[in-house]
Every structure is written in structure tokens, then in C-alpha cells.
């Protein structure tokens, strides 16, 4: 199997100013992430808001350059790729289909844009290919004349998927593709994404805060906390045997539709992670109920426990 996406120690920080008189603070949004994803795989990236998962997604799309580190798409460096080559390899599907489609353009133009941007294609060809892709995602080609406001949320998200796939890219970055949708529509979109991956041999990076959804679609899962992957493992292994205390807390807080089970105590306390102020040592230690002295002073960066990455000193101990 070839490697579709390889990310090597990527970092990105932003400066923020809270008020006119406040000092500038630096937010380390992504703080040293590395992974490689085989083609045909689905890497689910889960984490809470502000953990840097969307920034990571935008960097892999080439929308934001990393401050440091390197991203390789099918073995080529993303930084030295021109925009047309990049568009042919990798495409996004965003969370909110109400903001990812330009309200002033017709669906035909929206879906045709990636083709038009490649140049050297006639208007008729462009329309044919857009129509074909719209049918492929379960819409009628007649929709091409309409504007986004005339479609439902589910239809809009299908349009966004059609736009992402019209160039037949190898990799799709899905950033919370179902979070803004109703439950019944969410299932339709997930099924469509799964079907398209199988039929077109796509590779997905699937960013979500919904663990149940990630478990359903991902082959590998990375748990992100304050800009780093704190655990990364094959989906099955991660869900059956989570090692990092944060992964466990996340899994515990999933509320499945099973009555009679009490709401879990996730045991994270009420301190919230602040990317402008990342703690020394293990970045999770202020919220970890198992934290030891070592965790407060020494960061378990890149710690491997058995067959997977777990950034925790005590991940090997089953007692923790």
C-alpha cells in the first residue's frame, strides 16, 4: 500500500490579542503532529473545540502553510505544489453546507469550479462532468440551475461532496461533514461518503467531535488534545482498548441511545484546556486524575506503548 498523506512534525501558532491593552498571546494550535495515512484508509481525528483539529485539516489542504514541519501528499511536498496539482489530489468537505456554498452562484457553477480552475476544458464538458457527479451523489442534474438557498441542508452537503469529487481527487478532508445536519440526514451523508470511498478508492481524513460517527467510518483514529495527537491507533484497537486517560474520558462521555445507563462521570474536573497556555510536562496532567510527579515535569512526547502512539507515561500499566 502506498502512503496517501504523510505529516511530519507540523506546527502552527497564531497570535491573539484579547483587548487593546492586553498583551499579545501566542496560541499553539498545532504543536508537533506527525502521522502517515495509507491510501484507501480513513483517519478519524477527534478532539474537543480548540484542540487544533480544524487547523490541521486546513494545513493538509494547503490553505494555511505550517510554521514548521512538512506535509507530503502521495509522496510530493505540499509546499512546492501548484494550486492545480493540489486541487487534483486533495479536496475538502466542510461542516456547514450553508456557508460552504457561495450563495450568489448557481449549483452548476459551484460544482464546475474545480474543473474551470484547471483550465483547458470547454463549458459543455464542464457541465457534463458536473451533472454526472451530481447524479453520482444522488441529486438530479436539473439542480444545476438553482441557487444554494433553494436546497435543503442535506442536498447542499451533497452538492459540496460533488464539488469535492468532480476532479476525482485521491484524498478528501472531511471537516465535521455531518455536524450541522439533522440526525436522519446525517446518516444519509455518512452512508454516501462510505459508498463513495469504496467505489472511487478514496482516502479520507475525517475530522469530528462525534466519536460514534468516527467509530463507524474510520479505520484509524487519532485523539487530539491541545495541538498534539495524544493517542493514535487502528480504530478497533482504540475503541476497544483506549490507553490514554483522555481517550477514555472522551469515550465515556459518548451518550449512546441506550436507556437505563446513567450519565457517566468523565472525571476531568472543571479546568478547561487553553491553547494559549499549554501546561508544562504532560499537557493533559491538570485534568488527569492519575497524574504523577513525572507527568508534571516531563512531557511524554512521541511515547509509544506497545503497537501504538500514546503520549502517556503510564499507558502500558493496565492499572492506571
Amino acid at each position, binding site marked *: 500500500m502506498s502512503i496517501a498523506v504523510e505529516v511530519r512534525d507540523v506546527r502552527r501558532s497564531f497570535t491573539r490579542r484579547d483587548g487593546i491593552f492586553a498583551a499579545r498571546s501566542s496560541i499553539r494550535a498545532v504543536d508537533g503532529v506527525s502521522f502517515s495515512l495509507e491510501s484507501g484508509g480513513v483517519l478519524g481525528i477527534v478532539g*474537543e*473545540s480548540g484542540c487544533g483539529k480544524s487547523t490541521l485539516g486546513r494545513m493538509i489542504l494547503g490553505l494555511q502553510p505550517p510554521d514548521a514541519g512538512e506535509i507530503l501528499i502521495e509522496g510530493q511536498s505540499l509546499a512546492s505544489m501548484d494550486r492545480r496539482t493540489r486541487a487534483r489530489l486533495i479536496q475538502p468537505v466542510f461542516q456547514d453546507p450553508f456557508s460552504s456554498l457561495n450563495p450568489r452562484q448557481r449549483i452548476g457553477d459551484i460544482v464546475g469550479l474545480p474543473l474551470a480552475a484547471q483550465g483547458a476544458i470547454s463549458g459543455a464538458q464542464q457541465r457534463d462532468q458536473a451533472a454526472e457527479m451530481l447524479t453520482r451523489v444522488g441529486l438530479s442534474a436539473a439542480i444545476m440551475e438553482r441557487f444554494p438557498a433553494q436546497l*435543503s441542508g*442535506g442536498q447542499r452537503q451533497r452538492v459540496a461532496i460533488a464539488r469535492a469529487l468532480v476532479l476525482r481527487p485521491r484524498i478528501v478532508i472531511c471537516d465535521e461533514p455531518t455536524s450541522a445536519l*439533522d*440526525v*436522519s440526514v*446525517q*446518516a*444519509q451523508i*455518512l*452512508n454516501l461518503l*462510505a*459508498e463513495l470511498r469504496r467505489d472511487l478508492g478514496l482516502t479520507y481524513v475525517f475530522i469530528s*467531535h*462525534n*466519536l*460514534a*460517527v468516527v*467509530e*463507524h*467510518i474510520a479505520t484509524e483514529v487519532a485523539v487530539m488534545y491541545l495541538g498534539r495527537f495524544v493517542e493514535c491507533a487502528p480504530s478497533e484497537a482504540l*475503541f*476497544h482498548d483506549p490507553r490514554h486517560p483522555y481517550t477514555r*474520558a*472522551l*469515550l*465515556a*462521555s*459518548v*451518550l*449512546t*441511545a*441506550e*436507556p*437505563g*445507563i*446513567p*450519565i*457517566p*462521570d*468523565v472525571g*476531568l474536573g*472543571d479546568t*478547561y484546556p487553553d491553547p494559549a497556555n499549554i501546561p508544562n510536562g504532560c499537557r493533559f496532567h491538570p485534568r488527569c486524575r492519575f497524574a504523577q510527579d513525572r507527568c508534571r515535569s516531563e512531557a511524554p512526547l512521541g511515547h509509544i506503548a506497545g503497537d501504538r502512539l500514546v503520549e502517556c507515561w503510564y499507558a502500558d500499566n493496565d492499572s492506571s
Partner: protein
Amino acid sequence: MKPVLEIENLRVGFPDGTAAVRGVSLRVGRGETHCLVGESGCGKSVTALAAMNLLPRGATRSADVMRFHDEDLTRLSERQTSRLRGARMAMIFQEPMTSLNPAYTIGSQMTEVFQRHRHATRAQGMDRAAELLERVGITAPGMRLAQYPHQLSGGLRQRTMIAMALMCDPELLIADEPTTALDVTVQAQILRLLQTLQRELGLAVLLITHDLGIVARMAQRVSVMYAGQVVESGSAADLFGAPTHPYTRGLLACIPIPGKTPRDQPLGSIPGSVPKTGAEFAGCAFRDRCTYATADCAGTIPHRTVATDHRTLCTMVPA
């Protein structure tokens, strides 16, 4: 036992001709959590706003019965309802930032409600506010009282909203998607808090949500809404154990359960979309999306009783 909130045949219409709520009936008892679940636009939030008399201008409201304890909500004047609101009936919203005024400190906003309804002094209000902030699990309440809403994280804001709602010892708490804007770990904390408070204070809670996971863990009673109607209602055990309405069953099939839903098979899904329902819409609103629909579904459908306290709006269940 008499319910705290009782609604019979509530109808709400909007000036553009849509009937947002078409004959909703529900009861919330003391110490009970009643979940109103449905997808966006089904009328669940409008139902709550109608009960609080907070509907937008131009909306029309009618009900056979709408009672809070012994107060007939359909007959109260605006002033009388506003006296109930915030005191005996409280409401919390999805996005706490929209209901907190950014220009005032937490403390002054919390005491303001208390002073108005209880004719208390500011000092008494501050004491009460500090006590409640501690109660909802906020450490160093004294410091928080002097802070402004934007200085708090999302989770803290929602805790503050809950504390504010509890200032005047309400009997009914209406929570509209209280955890939708929060992270999953924070969501679990807030829901645990709501559950504990409810048990200890004997609150009647009407919880509005689209998340069946929350319903399963929080509700004693559940009403599933679709296109302005309650299509199925019953105890949580009945609804999750033996759902009868095709819409309820469809919804349950849509959500993956980690470790249980097979990964290589597609999830269940409901084809089609919600129809536009005006005041004159007749028959089952779900019939166009339903695999079991027959000619009968276009006629008027009365509520059918499946079991004690388990009712459904479907022709498949014998009358």
C-alpha cells in the same frame, strides 16, 4: 398526581401561514424529566416558547388546556406571565452568550432577577448567587460574580445560566438544547449536574433536544415530534425498547452505537424530506417518507394507545 405543566392540543401558527405546532399535548410532573425530541423545524422549541409566552410577534397561539399548576396560562396577561417567568418557570437556552448581557457582570445579572421577583436587597442577591454558583460546581464563586460573560468558557457559562435559572427556586425548568454548543466531555458534566439538581430540588424539567443519546440517558418520559405533532410519546423504556412509529424507528436506526452498529453496513436512513405543513394539512405528515404508508394515512389519524401511557400517531397500530 397533578402535573406541573399540562398542555392539551396546543397550536401555533406563524404569519406566513405555516402551522409550526399542530395539536401538541404533553404533561411534565414534579421531579420528572420530559424530553421533547425531534429534528430542526419540527416545532419543539416553538412549543416551549409558547408555554413561556415568548413567541415572536405575529405568531398565534391556541390551546384547549395550558396550565402551570393552577394557573391557566392561556388567560394570564403579559404582566402576569412575566411574573411567573424567571421565578416559578425558568428557561435556559442553547447558546448562553445570547441570553447573558455582555455589558454586565455575572453577579449583577444574577441578582437582578432575584431582586425583581423577590424584592430582596442586592447583598441578599449576591449571597444567593454565590451559593448557587457553588451549587452548580463553580469554584471560587466570589471571583466569578465579578466577571463578565466573555471571561467564562462555554461550560462555565452554561453552568452560570443554570444557576441563574435557579435563583428564584423555580418549579419548572425548560432547557432548550442546553448542551448542543458544548464539547462532549462538558456536555456529560452539565447533564449530570441537571440530573442531580432535578432530583434534589424536585424540579419538573422539559428538556428539548435533537440528540437521542441525551434523551435515553435523561428522560423519564419522551415525546417525539415531527412536523408540528407529537407522533409518539411514552416512557423512555417503552420508546427505546418498543418504538412503534416508523419515524421513531427510523431515527433510532440512523445513529451509530459504538461497538454495536456493524461498521461495514450502511446506517439506516430516512429518505425524503419534511413536507410543508399549513393549517389545513391533513393526514400523516410522515406518509411520503414511510415504507408502510397506505391509503388510510391520508385521512385524519387519531392517537392510538399502544400500552399504558404509550401513545402513537400511526395507522399501523390498531385503534
